[in-house]
């Protein structure tokens, strides 16, 4: 019988070894993946024992800790002193609903888990001594006054404002309306669900600046004009005849206002007054692929490289059935409609601010960033973001020509409502009709700076459900936000 007993013993021992192997699997190999899961409540709670680093703007506190002692444990919960002003970009870190925004994407920095070996030893010693782990501080590039001005200007309207420094890529303003108070996420989520605005659903949690996709309307003409000039097929003085419409495959595509055809116009005048038929004809001449290629040079078809979570940034471009669509042949899309911003084009406000900024920055696209630096708990700077060039999107000559045309649009064209005395502003309006009266998506994008200087600001404003044009609705918001930003930068 002993042989059988030995075998049964072997089986019993084998079962125990299997348990050790399985434990090893979960505690080592599968551990990181489990820690990442959104429903991992233990990980979430354990992370609240870490003294999370604060998130700051150059002059304000955007996120800080509030201690709560439960039984024998000390938890560090988050408070957001700026409330709804920086909700979308900073995001939230709560027990109930995981994380979003920078709180999510910079979690390892804020919890101090991304560190050198020596601090790893310190951290382990702290842990043994029962001291809380302290994370790094994140300093952002945001201007809280600008954030406030943008949200106040948007009011109850649904939309977004993005302001960049085109010379460096620093994000100064990034707001989405309606906003929400991140302090309500944990205990008063009902209040967030009750938020209403001039659109349904109001989606207050959506970061429209980088997650919202909207038809660009005439703002896209800047991309078309860049392609036209860069191709050397056209100059600013190229003349077109505008009958008030353009024929595409035998169908008429009307101007915004068909009652007043412009007759003979130059490209410069066409951009100044946003004449659809001219751009339609340019598009037919250039072909869809050339325009798509130019759009890609401006950053379309990639997620804009910001520090926020990847899932909160969407690429701009042609969309087909909810998916980004890159046409292989010219005849796959209608170049005439595409040239003035129709034809399934969808863009984010962040992307359009990048386009305006590139024109203002002599054709060089800078990588946008919102994290200025990270600082250790002892106050030493750990990392500092250096401005980096993504690529040259257009030649300096094209940038200058397109920029001049945009300046004329603000001086005496569709964008006059954005004028600010003493500033050189080049802008482009956009009004994308959705077919339903009173529900246009309106745009204004611009670069702005003192005369004779490189522009300091690139702005994009989008509004949903508007009955009037971009020039009448979005351009005044751009003016208000830029005015709010001016004094603070004058001090710099």
């Amino acid at each position: 019988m002993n042989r059988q007993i030995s075998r049964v013993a072997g089986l019993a021992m084998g079962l125990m070894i299997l348990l050790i192997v399985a434990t090893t699997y979960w505690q080592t190999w599968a551990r990181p993946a489990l820690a990442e899961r959104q429903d991992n409540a233990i990980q979430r709670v354990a992370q609240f024992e870490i003294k999370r680093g604060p998130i700051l703007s150059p002059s304000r506190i955007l996120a800080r800790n509030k201690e709560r002692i439960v039984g024998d444990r000390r938890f560090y919960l988050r408070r957001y002193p700026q409330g709804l002003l920086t909700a979308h970009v900073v995001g939230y870190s709560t027990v109930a609903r995981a994380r979003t925004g920078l709180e999510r994407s910079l979690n390892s920095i804020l919890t101090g888990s991304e560190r050198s070996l020596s601090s790893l030893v310190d951290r382990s010693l702290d842990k043994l001594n029962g001291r809380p782990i302290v994370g790094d501080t994140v300093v952002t590039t945001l201007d809280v006054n600008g954030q406030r001005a943008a949200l106040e200007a948007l009011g109850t309207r649904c939309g977004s404002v993005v302001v960049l420094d085109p010379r460096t890529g620093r994000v100064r303003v990034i707001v989405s309306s309606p906003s929400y108070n991140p302090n309500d996420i944990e205990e008063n989520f009902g209040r967030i669900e009750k938020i209403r605005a001039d659109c349904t659903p109001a989606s207050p949690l959506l970061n429209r600046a980088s997650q919202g996709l909207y038809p660009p309307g005439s703002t896209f003409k800047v991309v078309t004009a860049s392609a036209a000039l860069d191709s050397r097929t056209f100059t600013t003085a190229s003349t077109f005849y505008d009958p008030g419409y353009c024929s595409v495959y035998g169908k008429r595509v009307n101007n915004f206002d068909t009652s007043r055809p412009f007759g003979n116009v130059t490209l410069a005048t066409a951009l100044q007054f946003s004449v659809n038929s001219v751009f339609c004809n340019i598009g037919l001449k250039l072909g869809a692929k050339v325009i798509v290629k130019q759009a890609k040079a401006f950053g379309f078809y990639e997620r804009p490289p910001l520090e926020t979570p990847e899932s909160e940034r969407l690429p701009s471009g042609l969309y087909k059935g909810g998916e980004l669509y890159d046409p292989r042949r010219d005849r796959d899309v209608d170049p005439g409609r595409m040239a003035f911003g129709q034809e399934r084009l969808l863009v984010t406000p962040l992307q359009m601010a990048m386009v305006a900024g590139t024109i203002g920055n002599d054709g060089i696209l800078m990588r946008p960033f919102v994290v200025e630096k990270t600082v250790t708990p002892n106050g030493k700077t750990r990392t500092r973001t250096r401005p980096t060039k993504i690529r040259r999107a257009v030649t300096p000559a094209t940038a200058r020509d397109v920029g001049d045309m945009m300046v004329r649009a603000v001086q005496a064209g569709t964008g006059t409502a954005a004028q600010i005395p003493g500033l050189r502003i080049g802008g482009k309006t956009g009004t994308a009709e959705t077919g339903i009266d009173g529900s246009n998506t309106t745009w204004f994008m611009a670069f702005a700076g003192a005369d004779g200087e490189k522009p300091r600001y690139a702005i994009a404003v989008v509004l949903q459900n508007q009955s009037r044009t971009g020039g009448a609705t979005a351009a005044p918001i751009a003016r208000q936000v830029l005015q709010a930003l001016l004094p603070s930068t004058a001090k710099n």
Partner: protein
Amino acid sequence: MSARNKELLNLGFAALVASAAFASVSIVGTGLVTTRWLGYVGVVFGLYLVAHIVARFTVPYADPTLLPLVGLLTALGLTVIYRLGPEDARRQAVWVALGIGVLAATLFWLRYDYRALERYKYIFGISAVVLLLLPSVPGLGHRVNGVKLWIKVGPMQFQPGELAKIFMIIFLAGYLRDKREALAQGRLKDLGPLLLIWGASMLVLVQTSDLGSALLNFGIFLAMVYAATGRLIYVVAGLGLFLAGSAALYNALDRVQQRVTVWLHPWTDERVYCSISGELDFRQNCDSYQLVKSLYSIANGGYGGTGLGKGTFTTVDGTQLIPYLNTDFIYSAIAQEVGLVGSAAVLLLVMVFVARGMRIALIAQDGFSKLLATGLTFGLALQTFIIVGGVLRVVPLTGITMPFVSYGGSSILSNFIMLALLLLVSNRAAATAVNR
């Protein structure tokens, strides 16, 4: 050194380890370095000292590692239970005390010759079936968490399945010793009892809808049949029948079906039907909530664990994250706090116990003793495997206790009876070897 002196030394080591563990929990819990925990360790160590002295008189030659191993496992269980809820730990300590009383009583009662049990094998066999079916008796049975495993008499709750398991092992050891030659011949008519027991376990499965106990009892049965006959065909046929039976019942038993689904796909990306709320939800928030939360707990331990007393088991508001943490899921609490190093050590303790138990079966002289020791030891190994394997998602999760570690009176008491029987078998085997 005599076996009992070795045992005393081993108990000393066990007490040291247990002291360190409880001191850690106590210091983290109160935030003060005090010696209050010494009293607790003293009480537990005192109990095992009593067991040791009883063993000196009744089983002087018995294996010297079993009692200290059990001492360490129960002390560790008590430490973790204390850490999760001091009230439960006090009750558990009383159960351990009663368990040691039962151990002493069993040792005294059977100190001359435990083989007398063999004569009453049919009584044990019938009692086992009766005990297993008791929870199904209307008015007596008590359903806990969807499973009918409890009987309730007044304020007392008892899980008869634990005792039934030991009775069944005694019966099988006696019965198989008688019939092993005939069974080894493999005549068709001798398959009768095998089929009978298969039928009985299926019946119990249907009655209690508890897959864990059915699997445990049937597994012990197959291991003992194999040990007795050496015919692998019985094991294969038995497993086949069990699987076929389970598969046939799969559709009839919602509960079994749900357990298997949870085991195979604990996470869903889409909302699925939730049997708890009746609404659509992610499975990880519903049916597989316990399993998934327990896996998170284990994973959070990593290599070294969070440290005893420093694991995360509650939310920031203080509500429990994992239900049944000190019974079914005690392993996930241990794994989080002592990490891979510690939980592997706990499993190694069980492994050493299993190795010693099987060694007892090997050196025992007669068939009854061999089969008894094999059945008891394999039962402990299989029970540990089913519950810990369930928690680790190796097998579908079923609610049974982790021997000697989990909170629960019935489990502790019957495990101490098992320990007593192993000590008795070991004592006789070693004594015969010494006297020869």
